[in-house]
């Protein structure tokens, strides 16, 4: 049992380094790990940059898996639920940062810890049991091979506690698949970067938490005033209302709530799905036919997770949760599948086996296109007839990926690695960025969105800064007011987008450092929580007064740290910030954005401007030595100089 510091506010003040090889736990002050950062992603990336050797493989025991809860996690701050998972990533070979909601991270803090740094490799499958300031190593041999749902049920039963909170991997993580994720509460995935494979390489099946302690805040009344202001903004926001009404799928999945939003179709060969097909899988259809309950992450008033029960057809009996817009895009429009129950089944399989929905759906779309073009034969596809739109073929192929059997052994590598292994010019059809699978809509038409996805240090994803202002069609006045440019709401224009991206990069890094959900922020709606709101919450919670400017500077530090790490560990430079060739060569064939593609010369101009805004070197796209010093990243300067000499 450890005694938490008496005067720690926001943070518990206590973290732990867990050595799986030696089965030892070292208790450390959180302040020692997080350095100048609040916590969450910022602190996780700092720890990785300080302690993971550059020559270590992501699967080596020397790699670290950092599970971090920020200072606002577990408080009354809205949606204060996120655990950030930071490690040297399997997909990129460099940065991996992913976060998940649910109830695990608050429980970690109630159990007395802000961060866990997991190192080494257990001799046998192991799970960690965290209770009231104690961390125990437990045998997980009997759980190895179980799905995440089975693992959660079994551990809650064994420990006789339905409120035991679980973070676990499925069989895909055990096999160290690069598209394996870590699951929280059955349906919340830390999907990005192959973190599930890293956890599998450590023989770590699960981390179970239960806690009974309090979280103090420095200025309770002032904190609650900030909470009330934040909740009022959430209650007044139309976009937050759409999330509440129908989740991310309702707002932006496969055509969005009004059917006009671009989506990916047939492995991004097209970006317009017919309204008739989109209508078959829209959220209100799922709601009417299958919805049983709405579920929320910890302390969230938007409850965007939907629990469905399928009662008819080939998937009758399926009960699952957590379908989002990316699921319906990846397993719906991008595979031309209009059977909503099949999409639910695919989502459930991913959650159970611990596969990232984006990675799994993207690699399957890649296989379908290879089959369409005769690059992959039916024999090689285990006899499956991979015709677009066939839900049975999609589910059958996904089952192979879940088990890593047959062609699934290839596909579980993700499209980038699988295309290298297969050859046959299949790489052109693999939509990836820095080795990471992409499951993203509107990359040809929405230029700022695309820039955010392609420059993300963790390899794609729209949650590292890609602005959603283009989808919102922000007016020029509002755009100017927030971003100092008039074009944030005009999808097809390249001008002004780097300015908007840089703003959201900083904001996202700040939100991730707090442990709150990004959906509470201006990214969802510019009228939602802005940097001053997060600064108020943080200051009142911790007693560490920060200004809005200081908060955004902290975000910029994190962006620089990740950019540096991405180069030091994986060698990524400017040339890795370009879109896949297909998006520059093939135009959208029809619809509102017919003719749109990404123009290389215009892209170059965006990159030049983007690097200039960060004060990065234009030729390499990297921070300078002086820049690192200015950002307080002095621990990287020496190794940076050595690394640049090899560039």
């Amino acid at each position, binding site marked *: 049992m450890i005694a938490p510091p008496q005067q720690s506010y926001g943070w518990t003040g206590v973290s732990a380094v867990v050595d799986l090889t030696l089965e030892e736990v070292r208790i450390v002050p959180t302040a020692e790990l997080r350095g100048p950062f609040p916590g969450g992603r910022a602190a996780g990336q700092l720890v990785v940059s300080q302690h993971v050797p550059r020559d270590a493989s992501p699967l080596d025991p020397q790699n670290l898996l950092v599970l971090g809860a920020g200072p606002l996690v577990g408080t009354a701050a809205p949606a204060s639920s996120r655990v950030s998972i930071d490690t040297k990533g399997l997909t990129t070979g460099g940065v991996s940062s992913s976060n998940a909601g649910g109830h695990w991270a608050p429980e970690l803090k109630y159990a007395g810890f802000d961060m866990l740094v997991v190192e080494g490799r257990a001799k046998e499958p192991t799970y960690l049991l965290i209770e009231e300031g104690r961390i125990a190593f437990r045998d997980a041999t009997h759980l190895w091979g179980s799905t995440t749902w089975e693992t959660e049920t079994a551990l809650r039963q064994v420990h006789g506690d339905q409120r035991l909170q679980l973070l676990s991997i499925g069989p895909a993580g055990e096999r160290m698949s690069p598209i394996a994720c870590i699951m929280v509460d059955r349906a919340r995935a830390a999907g990005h970067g192959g973190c599930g494979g890293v956890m599998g390489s450590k023989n770590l099946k699960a981390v179970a938490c239960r806690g009974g302690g309090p979280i103090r805040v420095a200025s309770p009344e002032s904190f609650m005033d900030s909470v009330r202001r934040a909740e009022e903004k959430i209650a007044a926001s139309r976009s937050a209302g759409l999330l509440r009404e129908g989740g991310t799928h309702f707002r932006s999945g496969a055509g969005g709530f009004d059917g006009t939003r671009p989506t990916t179709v047939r492995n991004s060969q097209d970006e317009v799905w017919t309204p008739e097909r989109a209508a078959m899988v829209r959220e209100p259809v799922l709601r009417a036919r299958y919805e*049983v309950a709405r579920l929320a992450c910890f*302390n969230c008033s938007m409850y965007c997770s939907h629990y469905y029960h399928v009662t008819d057809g080939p998937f009758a009996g399926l*009960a699952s949760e957590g379908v989002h817009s990316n699921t319906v895009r990846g397993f719906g429009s991008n595979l031309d599948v209009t059977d909503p129950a099949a999409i639910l089944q695919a989502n459930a399989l991913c959650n159970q086996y611990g596969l990232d929905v984006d990675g799994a759906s993207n690699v399957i779309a890649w296989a379908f296109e290879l089959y369409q073009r005769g690059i992959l034969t039916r024999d090689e596809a285990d006899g499956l007839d991979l015709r677009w739109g066939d839900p049975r073929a999609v589910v059958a192929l996904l089952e192979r990926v879940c088990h890593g059997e047959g062609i699934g052994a290839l596909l579980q590598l993700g499209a980038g690695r699988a295309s290298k292994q297969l050859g046959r010019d299949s790489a052109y059809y693999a939509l990836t960025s820095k080795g990471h699978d992409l499951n993203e809509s509107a990359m040809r038409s929405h230029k700022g969105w695309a820039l955010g996805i392609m420059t993300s240090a963790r390899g794609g994803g729209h949650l590292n800064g890609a602005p959603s202002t283009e989808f919102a069609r922000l007016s020029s006045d509002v755009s100017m007011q927030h971003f100092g440019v008039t074009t944030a709401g005009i999808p097809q224009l390249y001008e002004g987008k780097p300015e908007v991206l840089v703003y959201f990069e900083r904001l996202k890094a700040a939100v991730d450092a707090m442990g709150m959900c990004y959906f509470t922020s201006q990214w969802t709606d510019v009228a939602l929580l802005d940097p001053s709101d997060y600064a108020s919450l943080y200051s009142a919670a911790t007693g560490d007064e920060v200004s809005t400017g200081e908060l955004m500077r902290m975000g910029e530090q994190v962006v620089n740290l990740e950019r540096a790490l991405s180069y030091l560990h994986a060698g990524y430079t400017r040339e890795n910030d370009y879109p896949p060739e297909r998006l520059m060569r093939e135009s959208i064939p029809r619809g509102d954005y017919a003719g749109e593609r990404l123009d290389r010369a215009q892209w170059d101009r965006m990159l030049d401007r983007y690097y200039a805004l960060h004060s990065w070197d234009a030729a390499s796209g990297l921070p300078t030595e002086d820049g690192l010093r200015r950002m307080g990243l002095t621990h990287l300067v020496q190794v940076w100089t050595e690394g640049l000499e090899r560039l």
Partner: protein
Amino acid sequence: VVTQVALDRCTGCRACELVCSFRATGTFWPQASAIQVAQLYQDPGVRFDLTVDPESCDLCAGEPVPRCLEACPRSVLSRAGIREMRGGAQ
């Protein structure tokens, strides 16, 4: 059996636990909350067990609205429902 709590609307967010514990202790401490939420998967379906400790719940005496009721984003709770969970004392 609780009849006046809309359990089918509960999302399991536990906002009620946070505000209840904050009133009692000035900290965020779900274990110290008079109201407790347990989310149980019963595929197909999710069951929520809500309980209120009659010893520590005074329906936020002196305040216009019990804080758990005010904080609930989906109107699961009512005064009558909280009384019911406390053990029927009216």
